[in-house]
């Protein structure tokens, strides 16, 4: 009898866990779809400006996502994503200056150029780790900042470079009027998020996370640490490059700051603040920090100071980022609810004087 009970309980527990896990996935999927639907539909109903602001947030959230994948999952702190982003944007501008206006060619060339640049960072990921890797990406980005000045006639120098071709280069979608371009951005962002989520939940993604946490052990288990690092760097490079391509289309103008360290550091901040371990973290970090900067910039000349204070507070109080913090808060609330329910049940048992030996169990505390 006793053996029979012992054999049944784990089976029921596993079934409960699977059901809860399935429910959570369904709930998460439904929430993601609802969020995407809201992102697509709601801003479009609020005139011209809101979709354009959100477009900007989406563009800057993609390089932040790229940083999140490299730093959060592969545990490589790369401050060179800005170089990939800027190089792709410059590729669009330079090509249009030379008469290349086919949007598909521009997209392919821009993303290709970004992947080539990220190939450089992939080499660093193979030959260096930790501080050495960080410094290599930092110095490379500083060098990239000088490229427009070095090739002034070609890249416009300090004055920046215009993207020719009007709406022809953006598939006929005008970034400044209508919602078409905004929806294109929503689509691209959703594509990268979905693909990243799929990859992270696949075996490949789990191996990458394992390599990030303990490369020696992963290597001992037979996984190619170098191969995975190169893979994640190139993949995140493609994401950052697509953002550069979209930036060039949206603003029709590129300038040297796009290649520099400030943007790169911002991407790191966006992902850290939003939550580097989550797909949506960098997106929320980018939108939140950019909005905060814009809002404070309208009310004070010292906006950077207040943004800095806000960052310090978030980093101190929410070390896992905003999404990590929200999740932790949720867990705490859930635990607190369970504890209260436990207390109520214990009190009820005392009141009803339950016979000794009876146990009332529920949830995960069985």
């Amino acid at each position: 009898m006793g053996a029979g009970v012992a054999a049944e309980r784990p089976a029921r527990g596993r079934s409960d866990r699977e059901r809860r896990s399935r429910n959570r996935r369904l709930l998460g999927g439904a929430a993601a779809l609802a969020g995407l639907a809201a992102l697509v539909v709601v801003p479009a109903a609020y005139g011209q400006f809101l979709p354009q602001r959100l477009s900007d947030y989406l563009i800057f959230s993609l390089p932040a996502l790229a940083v999140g994948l490299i730093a959060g999952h592969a545990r490589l702190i790369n401050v060179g994503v800005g170089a990939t982003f800027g190089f792709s944007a410059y590729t669009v501008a330079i090509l249009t200056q030379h008469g290349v206006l086919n949007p598909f060619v521009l997209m392919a060339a821009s993303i290709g150029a970004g992947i080539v640049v990220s190939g450089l960072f992939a080499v660093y990921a193979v030959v260096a780790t930790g501080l050495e890797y960080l410094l290599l990406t930092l110095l490379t980005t500083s060098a990239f900042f000088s490229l427009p000045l070095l090739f002034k006639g070609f890249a416009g120098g300090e004055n920046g470079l215009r993207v020719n071709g009007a709406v022809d280069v953006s598939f006929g979608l005008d970034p400044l009027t209508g919602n078409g371009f905004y929806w294109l951005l929503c689509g691209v962002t959703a594509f990268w998020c979905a693909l990243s989520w799929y990859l992270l939940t696949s075996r490949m993604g789990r191996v990458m996370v394992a390599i990030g946490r303990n490369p020696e052990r992963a290597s001992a288990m037979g996984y190619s640490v170098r191969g995975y690092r190169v893979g994640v760097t190139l993949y995140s490079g493609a994401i950052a490059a697509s953002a550069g391509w979209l930036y060039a289309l949206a603003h029709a103008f590129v300038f040297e700051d796009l290649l520099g360290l400030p943007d790169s550091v911002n991407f790191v901040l966006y992902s850290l603040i939003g939550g580097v371990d989550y797909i949506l973290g960098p997106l929320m970090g980018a939108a939140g920090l950019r909005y905060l900067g814009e809002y404070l910039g309208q009310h004070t000349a010292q906006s950077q100071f207040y943004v800095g204070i806000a960052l310090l507070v978030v980093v101190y109080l929410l070390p896992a980022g905003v999404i990590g913090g929200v999740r932790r808060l949720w867990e705490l609330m859930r635990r607190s609810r369970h504890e209260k329910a436990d207390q109520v049940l214990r009190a009820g048992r005392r009141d009803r004087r339950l016979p000794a030996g009876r146990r009332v169990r529920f949830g995960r505390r069985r």
Partner: protein
Amino acid sequence: MLADHAPITAVEGAELQVNTDLAVAEINAAGGVNGRKLRVVYADPKAQADEAINLGQQLVQQHGADVLVGAVLSSECLGVENLAPRLKTVYLSSTGCAAEDFTSKQCNRYSFRISPVGRQGVLSVADYSVKTYGKRWAIIYPDYALGQSQLNAYKAGMQAAGGELTQIIPIPQNETNMTPYITKIKTGSVDGLVNAEVGADLTRASKAIEQFDINKKLPIVGVFGKERFGGVYPTSLDRDIGVSPELSDSDNRYEAAYHKAFRDQLAKEPASIVTTLGGTTKAVPGDLGYVGYSTIKALGTAMRQSKFTGRDDTDKLIAALRSLRIKQGPDSPGGDLIMNGSDHQGAQTSYIARINGQKEKVLRTIPAAQVPRIGSCQAK
């Protein structure tokens, strides 16, 4: 109005704001434009081109701005210039925006610049310098884009006047030790020195020039405008020669009225702006402020001429700006103003002058009609 208040553009941003406020107050006091008052919405791009583009878009699409003005750095104003046709909104650059490309290469139907820049001033001052002092010149310049374009402008200017730059000394940006560069200047083998440094580098270079008595041995050309020094020229700039559409101690009655109105307006501005410009007793508009003032006055004139009532009248406003002519008077106190209808680059009466203590002695007056054109861009 895109008025930068970042540290590197603080003086330009402050002059832009004071002079815009002054010009708008004067236009509104005179009844506004076609019975409507002008209203300025300020935004600070913080010396970032992408911020300038975003804010320009925001001002038009969210705040309903009819015209965009400002953006100090070249990359900012070139970015906003590119935005203007996409928004189908008139854009006037104002203080700053020294890039010749604005009207020489990437001009467009919607963008205008009222005040002369780059070679428009350099060619005249180079011509004067060669004819007055001699053919062989040395130049010190900041070794980045702005300085390099100044170098090219002076090269072309000296060559056109029959002179040449025989000694070229690039100085890295933000160089704290100017001595190795300044002591390279061969005072015995050149007839003068062009000082194309800007900002804090200019202050350091000028002090080193004074320290080695180079300003006593050679005429120095390039630096002008006491608004860049808190309203007071440092002694190291004494006898320097420059070109400007505005003189801080001009005795013409329009300028005198403008300077008084500037000081009155400054007293109404926030303390941070007053401090940036050197305080109410020392601050002057200088050419940086005058560009801001004359740009808004020119816009007001064009709006009146075109009977502008809002963005629906943009085409009429463009036509009025293209053919803009303003004689010296309250709206253009420094001198005449002429807009070139093909590239949308303005020309203003300019003065080659020498700094003499705190005075500015006029050496030559260049009428607006004789200010050279730059490039051959056709604004369509």
